[in-house]
């Protein structure tokens, strides 16, 4: 088992390396660089900027070094947890990201939790009581979720909230806690603000999990081993959870990692629509400003998040399914 985990972690290293290159290339791809767009912005405002100042800015951010040099300098820093300096904020990327990262992660993880918490029981119910009213309701909700991406739902929520309360600023904290130091009250306040965006993000995922859980379980319920287990005299409920559920859940556990990129995408769009101060608006801004170390840092961190997610779900799967362990 430990060997399996070790192997799996070692396998992550080349992926991580490839990802750092991909992130870097993506960030470098837009024409021009930060100084170009900075100058263009200044000029657009009618400000004047000297050639020397431009040159000194370039030198300050080493923008004229060859790409390889910059990549290795950047990646070397990343390995030590230093993502470089944001040119736009003139501040360490790491600290800017760390300011907002917790909120992005909280929303994403909370929505992941909601997806599984709601999706699995409803999926089971709908499979066990196939063709019942429950099943039809769950299936319909599943279809609605399938067709309604989070950001449309967020837009809809925004409108409903505004029509009801005349105020659509959701935010992450109530005003009295905004600048306040951390306290129990502030945590509760945060949770009160998080569940709405998290459930919006979770909606599509939940709908698809219901469908998957239902289909998998229905498949398993027809397998001969279920009848064998009934022939032993087991109680239906005991049987359900010991056998078909255990097996139907395997592919779903291995999906955890693969649901993360989707949830992160959802979280970003929902945050943009609801105007939440998470990584998403920061990322959009950094892209627009060509503040590449910041943008690259965000891509890298989010990707690392999904990599760790797949790692965890692979390990979980190996723990519960002997067949996986023996294969690798």
């Amino acid at each position, binding site marked *: 088992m430990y060997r399996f985990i070790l192997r799996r972690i070692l396998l992550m290293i080349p992926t991580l390396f490839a990802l750092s290159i991909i992130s870097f290339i993506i960030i470098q791809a837009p024409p021009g660089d930060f100084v170009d767009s900075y100058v263009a912005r200044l000029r657009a405002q009618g400000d004047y900027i000297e050639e020397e100042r431009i040159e000194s800015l370039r030198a300050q951010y080493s923008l004229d070094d060859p790409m390889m040099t910059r990549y290795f300098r950047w990646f070397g820093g990343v390995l030590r947890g230093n993502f470089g300096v944001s040119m736009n904020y003139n501040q360490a990327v790491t600290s800017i990201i760390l300011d907002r990262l917790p909120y992005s992660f909280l929303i994403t993880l909370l929505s992941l939790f909601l997806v599984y918490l709601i999706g699995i029981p409803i999926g089971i119910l709908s499979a066990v009581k196939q063709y019942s009213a429950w099943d039809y309701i769950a299936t319909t909700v599943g279809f609605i979720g399938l067709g309604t991406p989070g950001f449309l739902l967020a837009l809809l929520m925004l409108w409903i909230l505004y029509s009801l309360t005349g105020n659509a600023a959701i935010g992450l904290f109530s005003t009295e806690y905004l600048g306040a130091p951390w306290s129990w009250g502030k945590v509760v306040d945060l949770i009160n603000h998080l569940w709405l965006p998290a459930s919006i993000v979770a909606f599509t995922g939940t709908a698809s999990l219901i469908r998957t859980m239902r289909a998998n379980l229905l498949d398993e319920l*027809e397998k001969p081993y279920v009848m*064998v*287990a009934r022939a*032993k*005299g087991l109680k239906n409920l005991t049987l359900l959870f010991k056998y078909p559920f255990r097996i139907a859940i395997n592919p779903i556990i291995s999906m955890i990692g693969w649901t993360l990129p989707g949830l992160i995408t959802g979280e970003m769009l929902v945050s943009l629509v609801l105007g939440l101060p998470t990584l998403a608006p920061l990322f959009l801004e950094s892209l627009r400003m060509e503040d590449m170390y910041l943008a690259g840092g965000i891509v890298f961190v989010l990707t690392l998040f999904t990599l760790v997610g797949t790692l965890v779900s692979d390990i979980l799967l190996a723990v519960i399914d002997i067949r996986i362990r023996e294969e690798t």
Partner: protein
Amino acid sequence: MDKNTVLEISDLHTHFKSKEGTVRAVDGLSLSLYEDEVLGIVGESGCGKSVTAQSILNILPKNGKIVSGQITYFNKGQSQEITSLLPESKEMRSIRGKEISMIFQEPMTSFSPVHTIGNQIVEVVELHRDDATIDARAQAINMLELTGMPNASEIIDAYPHNLSGGMRQRAMIAMALSCHPKILIADEPTTAVDVTIQAQVLSLMLDMRNELNMSVIIITHDLGVVAETTDRVAVMYLGKVMEIATVYELFDSPKHPYTQALINSVPKTSGEITKLVPITGTVPNPYNIPAGCPFHTRCPDFIPGVCDEESPIKTNISADHQVWCFKHADEKKQEN
């Protein structure tokens, strides 16, 4: 002869609902099982053999239902009517696996792939033991050893995919017998294992029957298996018993045209060279079983106006030999 009946099925009807309509999988089946005997049930694929077995244990799939008839289980002078029990009732569950247990056709898919063999056997023992101090694991190992499983104390912790087909079938038998049931139903126990293992599995089952004093129902469509292992045979066609007799009488003087056709359609092992005669026609659609005798559409001795209108009644050829056929209706005293 004085024989104690352990299981009595009378006029059983089990139907399935499906999109296309109702399947009358078992359609008026009656038979008895005596103490310590091996009863064979033969018939073509789809004639309702497995559904009969599932009805006895009341473990039909969701769309299936016993619509009428009785299944009665006799134990130590008491009788329990299985058909009156709810499928999920405590009484029903305490019969399954303890009094009546079953071996299934597919040893591969009959075990859960993510649990050890031991886990799945111990579970039955723990479920039905009267005394919580009984060491379920020891009993499971013991049972595996009894089935001739090599290294039983190691195999018990193996997963099904580590075992060969023959070993899995042994484990299956060990699981079914782990609570010393009174009745063992084996639904095509040898179809999925290769020929060399077939004989082993069959003789193992017979050994176990002697060891544990139980009655066995062997379901098969292989007349060879029937001839080798059973004491009595019931021939089924489209949900009904056509003929029931001791194995000797059945092969020696089959009465029902279907039984005759069935016997003529398989090669004899005795060395006589006879022409094989396939049964003409095809099995009718189970959604639409013909009226009267279900076999009349393929029967060489079809009597128009009789066989296609009325259901044939039971005729006793001898004490141990009954046939449901109009051809023999007036040969002996009629019953029922």
